[in-house]
């Protein structure tokens, strides 16, 4: 049942995007529709970009010039709709993940066995996560280079990896012995630590995700401190610095 639902949700997201981009793709082929990013031109002249992750700049610059990216970027409604899907699914994924973490901490549903909460609610977080990744990827595709050089986006990606690592450690560690502490209203220390870590990481991921739209450290906003330009692999234009 979950698999069919998952497939349906994926198809829905893709269909919405296809519809939304198809209408506007044609008139945006010209140069007017191109992402005007100062550093995509600078990049072509700079053989070795500085900073962390500079080698991928050319790839994301090309992705920004693709018809998919331009279509998503220029469409009247595609970006807004996908972002709405992203926010709605945040409630499903983040909300239920938080409820599970709170159970691990013994702060809610204390009389419900942990394995029961995991079995009945975690599949929904998997569905939510898949939709989050699909919609998030589309949002990234709409503005690839700028997002890639966004310090909040990079922070979010690193914390996503850490959150994934935490899930893996929890499920391959203390959760294997869940039968011994299933009905405990307050689970053992290792489970509480996993719950607390997960809670903190997901909260930070949501916060930094929201901050991507308000980037104070954008490449186009020079001068920035050298450390910021290093961490965002920005190559400030010489003429702009003065």
């Amino acid at each position, binding site marked *: 049942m979950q698999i069919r639902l998952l497939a349906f949700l994926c198809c829905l997201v893709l269909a919405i995007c296809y519809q939304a981009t198809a209408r506007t793709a044609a008139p945006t082929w010209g140069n007017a529709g191109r992402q005007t990013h100062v550093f995509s031109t600078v990049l072509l002249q700079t053989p070795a970009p500085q900073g962390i992750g500079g080698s991928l700049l050319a790839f994301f610059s090309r992705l920004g010039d693709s018809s998919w990216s331009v279509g998503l970027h220029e469409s009247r409604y595609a970006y*807004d709709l996908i*972002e*709405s899907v992203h*926010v*709605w699914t*945040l*409630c*499903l994924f*983040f*909300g*239920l*993940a*938080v*409820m599970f973490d*709170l159970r691990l901490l013994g702060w*809610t*549903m*204390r*009389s*419900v066995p942990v394995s*029961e*909460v995991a079995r*009945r*609610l975690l599949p*929904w977080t998997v569905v939510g996560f898949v939709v989050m990744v699909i919609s998030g990827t589309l949002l990234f595709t709409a503005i690839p280079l700028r997002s890639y050089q966004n310090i909040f986006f990079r922070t979010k990606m690193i914390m996503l990896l850490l959150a994934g690592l935490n899930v893996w450690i929890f499920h391959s560690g203390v959760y294997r012995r869940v039968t011994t502490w299933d009905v405990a209203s307050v689970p053992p220390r290792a489970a509480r630590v996993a719950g607390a870590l997960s809670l903190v990481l997901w*909260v930070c991921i*949501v*916060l930094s995700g*929201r*901050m991507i*739209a*308000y980037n*104070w450290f954008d490449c186009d906003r020079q001068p920035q401190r050298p450390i910021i330009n290093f961490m965002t692999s920005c190559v400030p234009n010489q003429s702009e610095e003065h």
Partner: protein
Amino acid sequence: MSLLGFFQWCEQSGIGDTIRRSSWLFPVIEAIHLLGLGVIGGAVLTVDLRLLGLGLRRQPAAQLARDAQPWLVGSLLLMLITGSLLFLSEAIKCYYHEAFWFKMASLFLALVFTFTIQRKVIMAGETRVRPVWSKVVALVSILLWSGVGIGGRWIGFS
């Protein structure tokens, strides 16, 4: 004072002005607002999925609703505080934005529905309510709260 006059008064308030003049206050308050939304989503969905028969099954809905209640009410308070601050900083924009009125209508209906009809159905217990009504109540709840979240997101789109 007319409604527009009230909105203008909000816009000119000291708090609204402080938030508008800061480059980081609005984004930070908005991010906290979003966290509150996520927690409300979790608390609401735990109960609604139970009513739909798609979430937890062995526990009575009444017990889950009691467990989720502090998180629902807590995050709701957080939302109302941060939401009011955001509103003070852009009251005039809200006055002329359909999404704001859509959101306020959804919020009003969601609150009334959750704390009257839905609560009654849940507390009555499974034996006294036909399963189909529990499901209808859960779907209406999800729809109304979705209206609040999506309406809120669209205030940001011009």
